[in-house]
């Protein structure tokens, strides 16, 4: 899969980049803000976007998911803050929610297994 990883924490980007590469995926782009994530998805046309919920000033992960929404792009909201409201908002824009701390759940979501994949 061609992936874009968006998170305002560089350590998370490093981790996901390493792990997804080891999983056999291509990391075609990274972003550290909501605006940069939208730009990267528009420019690079990935198949999967892994995006954090809180991205600092500007659009959050769900706003980004809404903006880049298209049938051939799977958006995974990768966040520490999983709540019923977050899940509902994500569903409305066609995204799934994976809680940070479980790489295996994230890998399954990237592969498209068991949607919606929430932990």
């Amino acid at each position, binding site marked *: 899969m061609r992936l874009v990883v968006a998170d305002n924490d560089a350590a998370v980007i490093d981790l996901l980049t390493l792990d997804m590469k*080891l999983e056999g995926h291509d990391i075609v782009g990274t972003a550290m803000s909501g605006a940069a994530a939208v730009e990267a998805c528009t420019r690079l046309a990935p198949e999967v976007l892994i995006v954090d919920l809180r991205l600092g000033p500007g659009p959050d992960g769900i706003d980004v998911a809404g903006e880049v929404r298209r049938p051939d792009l799977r958006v995974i909201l990768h966040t520490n803050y999983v709540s019923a409201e977050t899940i509902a908002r994500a569903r409305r824009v066609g995204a799934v929610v994976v809680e*940070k*701390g479980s790489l295996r759940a994230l890998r399954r979501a990237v592969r498209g297994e068991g949607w919606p994949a929430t932990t």
Partner: protein
Amino acid sequence: MSNTRDRLLGLVAGAMVVLLGVLVVISVRDAEANGKRALERLQVAQVQQLARGLDSQVTSAFAALAGFGGSKPWNLAVGDPADASRLQALQDQNPTLRTGFLLLDARGIITNGTLLQSPVAGRPYTRPGIEPVLQQRKPVILSVAPGLTTPLPTLAIAFPVQDAAGGLGGAMVIESDVSPDSAFNQQVTALRRGRTVVYSFIDSNGTVVASSDLSSIGKKAAPDVLDPRLSFHHSGSNVIASALVPVAGWRAVFQESSSEFQGKLTGPLHSALLLIALAALAGGGLTFAALLARLRSAREEQRRLRSINAAREEFISIVSHELRTPATGQLGFLETTLDHWDGLDDTERREAVSHARSNARRLHALTRDVLSTASIEAGELPYAFEVVDVRGVIRSAADAIADATVAVDLPGQAVEVRADPARIEQVMTNLVDNALKNSPPRAEIAVTVGATAEGEVLVEVADRGSGMTEEQAARAFDKFARGRDQSVEGTGLGLYICKSIVEAHGGRIWVARRPVGTSICFTLPLAGDAPPEPEPTPATATTATADG
């Protein structure tokens, strides 16, 4: 709005107190009015009783005189010696009497008399009021008029007497002087009990017959006293109560100044009213002020608690986020390494585990900062002071941050300070960590140790990051002050802890704003006597200092 509502509540409460006072005043005034009416009724009753008493006495006197008049006939001839002798005997029975007796025949001619002031025998008795005695055979009290048996004004009792033919054909007149020292007036005077009280008896002509006001005796009574209203009424500054003495045709009158009459009742009441009114006003004012103060205090307390609660919630939110990030990072790198162990070469494994260690360090630093802050606020952060070479402490802190580019410039000779090495290392770690967060990736952090002109050790940690605004520099050491921009992670506790530790060591800490990046400087007092050579002091052109 809150202030307006507080004032309104205070006003309402104060107004209620004042209203209560008003109600009390109204009740007291009502009681006062009732008391006055009761007093008036009492006084009227007293005057009426006086009048009834005199009326009874007059009635009894008339009855006695009627018997006397009909007991033995009189000759009723002018100058009759037997009549004269009997009259003189009557006079001699009352040697203290200052007035005398007169005999009249059926035509009203004076036939005899005692103590006559002039020869009036044989002349008509012209005193007004005698007609009912001669014509209707009724005893009467004649109004005050000049007397015939005394030079003083007199009132007189006239009653029918039996003549020689056996019928009631003439009259006897007994005069009595109207004067201050008359026996009757002395009785009236004895009634007086107040400074302005006047008791008077007034005949049907309006002449004062007797009075405790001696100057009015024998004169016409004042018009307000002759007011035809009976009972109780006010006239000018006086109160007047009057009652009829029917048999005598007189009026009994009580007079007193209004203030004296009501004084015993209204004096204390007015004093009480004044006290109540003052107490109500003072109470209302105090209630308003106290309630307002309490409301404001409660509102301030509410604001303070809301602020504390908000700060606590923000702190919990920040800390929980900051905890999760390194925890999940640490777990993630270890999970990746273990899951792909065979797919990684040694270098990649080392790098992954190194990332895990960085996250673990971050987690450790966070928990240490939170616990340190709690200890600082409880005044319980422990220190173990000893004399140490500060160069070793700084080197140790710089080496611990293995994945950062930290350039350390230390003096060639020992720089001894009295400090807790672990706490100074904590300060250095926080300052370097802060510099790293606010610098571009792989930008150099410079740590320099020198001295101030005052001989203190001066440590400077300089970054080449985004720099601080004046406002940010002013708040840099506040608790929860987070970063130079919102994207920088952290709890906002690092510099707050540094300030607390540096000040506990007797030092100062401040922000030095630079053209590029920021320096944070702190001092420590030297432990030894010989200070290090002074070196150029970094510019302290900053608006934020956190001097100890």
